[in-house]
């Protein structure tokens, strides 16, 4: 074996949220890499959150799709793409090109997105190209376009450093955009920036707020309409800006007065007290430097676009836009949702921030030399899958997303896919639910993962950064743009798809953005249209607009020139707030959904990291204590959550963080990681009339306790298949995989099951069947292969001690005994700081030993010193731990 030459550190970009942090990856030559924050990247300046820090743990080839497959059989690329091209041609001939659809992803690189969009809209001739960004921020896009005439984020991250007031609405930034949240907290330290958090749920972000407004879900428009009224009545308006640069103010204000004439009305609609409302309005009124950052709580709503415009209205009315420390700020969820928007990879866009005005269609047609250019909008995600169900769409190509988990009414999606004549999935993970679904003909195409692919992404502040390759392509995995271009050539469009590199794709994309632009379109990166391959390779993060001539801009609209035909921004009269679906006696609760701190989307990557899986190991539902009492739910027990569309079984977390009458469940678990916990199956997804974004955070639901006989866990080196009928969730642990389960099987049956699962191995056991207790450790010689604990009753088993023991390959006798007794006390407790793997006990011990501040705790045990996303949890420990100490 030859020694590996030291590898070069590569500058790349994190593949998770829309913050778009710079990452330094140093490959180890064995398929892994050391990961660090890039101190020179303007988004993060060297910091990384828990998820980004753990990227190195997600690079294994376990579960990877490495070869093309057709109907479950391995094929060559030649054969697989031949099948795709042939079937596409056949569908187009028999049913028309608009029977073909593409469902793309904010995880794709801009280059992949561009080629997919071009192929579909210009050459195949189908308008049905949508993306999971529809579920993420399409309402923000629509609000931007209604207000600004363009999909423009006016500000930049530096505004968070320079604001005196940051209003976070529908955003759990502390967990979902941790690095930006750190910038906000730093601003508070440096300049006393006030933090207002508006959320129906008291999240970690809410815990950190100077003012937390726990509003009724869906009532944001009432709060911001009331704010507009207050600003007008208090004379805080920027009358000149309104007069010179906007239109529609009076109509919007009239509507706002109808909705929210006074604080009492706002209080009635939002459930807030008049005092809370007054405090917020006063703070907003007297603070010119205000950024209102909004995210999924605003967007994932049947009125998401109106919510966005209600916010933007307040910023336009005060002229607080496009200047340092001011502006509405959409925080995007995905690493390249913005890039997708730039290429136009959504059903209501054509390309490069151009839509369907005849001159725009003609311009794109000429630029692409496209024979089959489309002339109107296609179907947005929800409608698109409904069309599949109705048999209208016959061929679907899914790239880099997991709609069987994430789409509303996901069980219907799965059934609909089965009807497709052609179902193509470009995917990294072989056992993703979407890759396991099948159509009449199913083609799986192995895609490159982060670290293998090469291209660009755009973050929430319009900054284009390179995602660079630092690992070699595994198996036969191929860049998505290359697979798409190959199909384009097979369909007879050789010239249009003659791309030989990502750089070539990017140049064309940049060229289109500048094509006949002349300042009429916000998205112009003409300066990059002639980038050489070398310059593309070396390029540093840049913000758009970046026209060929003229200055680059950090912020837009301070000059009052918008991208409407008259260059004026529009105030939008919004609808009165209402949820799409009302609760009923049968479904008396409102189900909210969202993320946890350490997982990303459907866990196909973060699920591989034991550090990230330690924070929240099972899918759960948060229930207010009053509701827990009302429905007979115990903390840690299993409950069924049922809506009109589907059901899930989740572990109950009783917390005052959710309002009475509301539930919260995380979105991450899929059929690959849990028995029955797909959020998508439960939500109806009533769509916003403007953006088509489905409402995912307010579904009427019922909850009831589910009786299981026992709870337990199984740790194994290889991922073990749980038996039918068990409730389970799978999580990565040090040294293998963990399965937390609940079962109706008895301890004897479980003991038999272990014998069956681990035939030929030696089983060490503790069996007290009369009391329903069973623990088992499986050995191959001295090597610990698996261990299981089974305990009758609803109590959640503590597996920290066993996980610590399982991290060792061959435990000694005392540890072997501890595996059976379940008694060895863990030194760490549940993990709080995922970056450094510091547990609750260690932090409590540091506090008890005199570390009485977050900083001192960090100095003592490193917790909270990396990404800082656990700092709120550490802070929470401080007074409690001190009180205990004093007792």
């Amino acid at each position, binding site marked *: 074996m030859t020694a590996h030459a030291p590898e070069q550190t590569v500058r790349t970009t994190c593949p998770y949220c829309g913050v778009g942090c710079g990452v330094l990856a140093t490959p180890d030559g064995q398929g892994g890499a050391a990961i660090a924050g890039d101190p020179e990247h303007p988004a993060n300046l060297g910091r990384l959150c828990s998820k980004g820090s753990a990227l190195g743990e997600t690079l294994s080839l376990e579960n990877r799709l490495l070869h093309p497959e057709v109907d479950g059989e391995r094929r060559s690329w030649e054969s697989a793409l031949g099948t795709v091209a042939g079937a596409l041609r056949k569908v187009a001939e028999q049913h028309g090109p608009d029977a073909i659809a593409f469902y793309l992803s904010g995880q794709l690189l801009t280059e992949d997105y561009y080629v997919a969009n071009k192929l579909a809209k210009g050459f195949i001739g189908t308008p049905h190209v949508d993306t999971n960004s529809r579920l993420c921020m399409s309402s923000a896009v629509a609000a931007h376009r209604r207000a600004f005439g363009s999909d423009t984020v006016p500000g930049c991250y530096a505004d968070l450093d320079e604001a005196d007031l940051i209003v976070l609405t529908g955003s759990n930034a502390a967990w979902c955009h941790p690095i930006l949240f750190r910038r906000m907290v730093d601003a508070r330290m440096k300049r006393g920036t006030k933090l207002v958090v508006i959320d129906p749920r008291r999240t970690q972000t809410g815990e950190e707020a100077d003012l937390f407004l726990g509003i009724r879900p869906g009532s944001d428009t009432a709060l911001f309409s009331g704010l507009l009224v207050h600003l007008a009545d208090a004379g805080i308006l920027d009358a000149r800006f309104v007069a010179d640069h906007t239109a529609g103010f009076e109509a919007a204000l009239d509507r706002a007065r109808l909705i929210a004439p006074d604080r009492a009305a706002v209080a009635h609609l939002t459930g807030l007290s008049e005092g809370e409302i007054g405090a917020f309005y006063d703070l907003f009124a007297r603070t010119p430097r205000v950024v209102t950052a909004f995210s999924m709580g605003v967007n994932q709503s049947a009125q998401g676009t109106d919510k966005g415009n209600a916010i933007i209205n307040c910023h336009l009315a005060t002229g607080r836009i496009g200047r340092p420390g001011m502006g509405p700020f959409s925080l995007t969820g995905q690493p390249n949702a913005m890039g997708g928007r730039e290429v136009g990879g959504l059903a209501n866009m054509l390309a490069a921030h151009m839509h369907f005005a005849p001159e725009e269609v003609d311009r794109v047609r000429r630029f692409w030399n496209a024979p089959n250019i489309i002339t109107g909008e296609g179907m947005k995600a929800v409608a698109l899958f409904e069309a599949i169900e109705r048999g209208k769409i016959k061929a679907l190509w899914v790239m880099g997303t997991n709609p069987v988990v994430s789409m509303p009414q996901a069980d219907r999606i799965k059934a609909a896919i089965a009807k497709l004549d052609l179902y193509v999935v470009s995917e990294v993970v072989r056992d993703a639910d979407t890759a396991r679904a099948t159509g009449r003909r199913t083609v799986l195409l192995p895609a490159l993962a982060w670290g293998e692919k090469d291209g660009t992404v755009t973050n929430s502040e319009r900054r284009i950064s390179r995602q660079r390759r630092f690992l070699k392509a595994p198996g036969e995995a191929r860049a998505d743009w290359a697979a798409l271009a190959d199909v384009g050539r097979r369909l007879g469009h050789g010239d249009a798809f003659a791309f030989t590199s990502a750089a070539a794709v990017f140049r064309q994309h940049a060229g289109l953005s500048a094509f006949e632009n002349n300042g009429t379109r916000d998205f112009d990166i003409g300066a990059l249209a002639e980038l050489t391959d070398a310059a593309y390779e070396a390029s540093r993060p840049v913000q758009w607009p970046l026209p060929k001539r003229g200055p680059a801009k950090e912020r837009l609209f301070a000059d009052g020139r918008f991208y409407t035909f008259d260059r004026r921004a529009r105030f939008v009269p919004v609808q009165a707030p209402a949820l799409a679906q009302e609760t009923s006696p049968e479904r008396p609760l409102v189900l909210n959904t969202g993320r946890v701190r350490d997982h990303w989307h459907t866990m196909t990557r973060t699920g591989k990291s034991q550090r990230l899986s330690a924070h929240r190991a099972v899918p759960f539902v948060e229930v207010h204590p009053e509701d827990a009492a009302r429905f007979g739910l115990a903390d840690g027990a299993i409950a069924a959550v049922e809506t009109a569309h589907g059901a899930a079984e989740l572990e109950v977390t009783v917390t005052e963080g959710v309002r009475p009458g509301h539930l919260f469940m995380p979105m991450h678990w899929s059929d690959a990681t849990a028995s029955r916990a797909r959020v998508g199956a439960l939500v109806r997804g009533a769509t916003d009339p403007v953006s088509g974004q489905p409402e995912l955070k307010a579904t009427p639901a019922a909850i009831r306790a589910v009786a299981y006989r026992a709870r337990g866990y199984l740790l194994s080196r290889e991922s073990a298949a749980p038996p039918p009928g068990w409730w389970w969730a799978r999580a990565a642990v040090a040294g293998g995989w963990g399965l937390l389960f609940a079962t109706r099987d008895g301890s004897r049956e479980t003991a038999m099951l272990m014998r069956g699962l681990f035939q030929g191995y030696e089983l060490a056991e*503790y*069996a007290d069947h009369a*009391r329903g207790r069973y623990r088992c450790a499986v050995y191959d010689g001295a090597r610990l292969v698996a261990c299981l604990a089974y305990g009758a009753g609803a109590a959640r088993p503590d597996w920290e001690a066993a996980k610590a023991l399982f991290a060792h390959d061959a435990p000694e006798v005392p540890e072997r005994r501890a595996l059976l*007794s379940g008694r060895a006390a863990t030194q760490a407790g549940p993990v709080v700081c995922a970056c450094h793997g510091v547990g609750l006990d260690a932090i409590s011990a540091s506090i008890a030993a005199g570390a009485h501040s977050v900083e001192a705790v960090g100095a003592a045990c490193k917790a909270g010193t990396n990404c800082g996303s656990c700092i709120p949890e550490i802070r929470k420990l401080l007074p409690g731990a001190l009180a205990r100490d004093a007792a």
Partner: protein
Amino acid sequence: MTLRTDPASPPRPPRERLVVVGNGMASLRFLERLTEGAPGLYDVTCIGAEPVAAYNRVLLSSLLGGEVDAAACDFRGLDWYAEHGIRLLTGAPVTAIDRANGLAVVGESHVLPFDRLVLAVGSTPIRLAKPGMDLPGVVTFRDLADVAAIRAAAVAQARAVVIGGGLLGLEAAVGLARLGVGTTLLHVMDRLMERQLDHEAAGLVKRAMEARGVEVLLKADTEAVEGAGRVERLRLADGRVLPADLVVMSVGVRPSLALAQSAGLATGRGIVVDDRMATSDPRIFALGECAEHRGQTYGLVEPAYEQAEVLARHLAGQEARYQGTALATSLKVSGLPVFSAGVVDTPDDAEAIVMRDHGAGLYRKLLVGEGRLIGAVFVGDIGEQGWCKELIRTGAPVSEHIEDIMFGRPAPRSLAA
């Protein structure tokens, strides 16, 4: 024969004369407790059949294996007996007891008058009633002389067969294996130590034996030992033939009754005693392996020690009664701790709670009937054995304590961080 007396100890006529027959471990413990509790109360004479004073018989297997030397087996030096006014006669078999005249006959001619007599004569190893058991090279394993004989036979390349899968047989076999002798252990039952261990525990002990180099044959019924003038082979009932240079018999012991019987004392399996260890003659007592109390004879040191305690207190004039020793075995099979108490095999109406980790040499079984502990078998880890014995004896409810019994009660935690 030698007679040792302490010249510094003047006769004190009023004292009762106490003669102790036998100088094994039970005898010595009795003498120790008696001289602690009632120093000088009796004029004590102790007569041992072996040529040396009481030694630690439990260590014989270690001595055989060379783990310890002979000095490690010593208990009390001769000076201790002298200091405590005990006349000790060693190598002196008591051949008869003349109850009418209160005399113990030593050897052919010597007589020792007594007012009270304690029989601590132990037991004798059983020899199978099979052909060839008297051939040279067939030995028992009971005392220092046996160890010497075995060691003499255990030369390089020698092959030994140990008959008997009880504790002593196991220890003899391990000792031989440790000497480098190819050793096979035969046991007629289907598991080792069947009176103390269930099948699984016995299996673990067998695994431990094998790990120590002993080949174990179960259901091995010896038919004959054969050889021309000396042991050459052993034949099993199933026809198998095992070559052997040495055969060690360890198939159990029989209480030594000859002396008591000829003296006309009541005997059953052993010399029958009451709760004060008195025989049918109130002046005569018995203890240790030769005694039968409430129909029970014991082959282990712990009951013998308890009996010695009771008798010493009784003879010191204190109230003391022996209630029998709970059927518990706690011992080490060549370093492997083993504990057994109460019921061994699971009755139909009882529940078994089991912890097993054969790879780590661990097995613990608790048998619970009607919420009470009725038996326990431990191998490899005998923690909480004392509590188990107590729980079996008292019949206290155990349902709430199962895991504490199984894994040990948590150590008291300090409140300080």
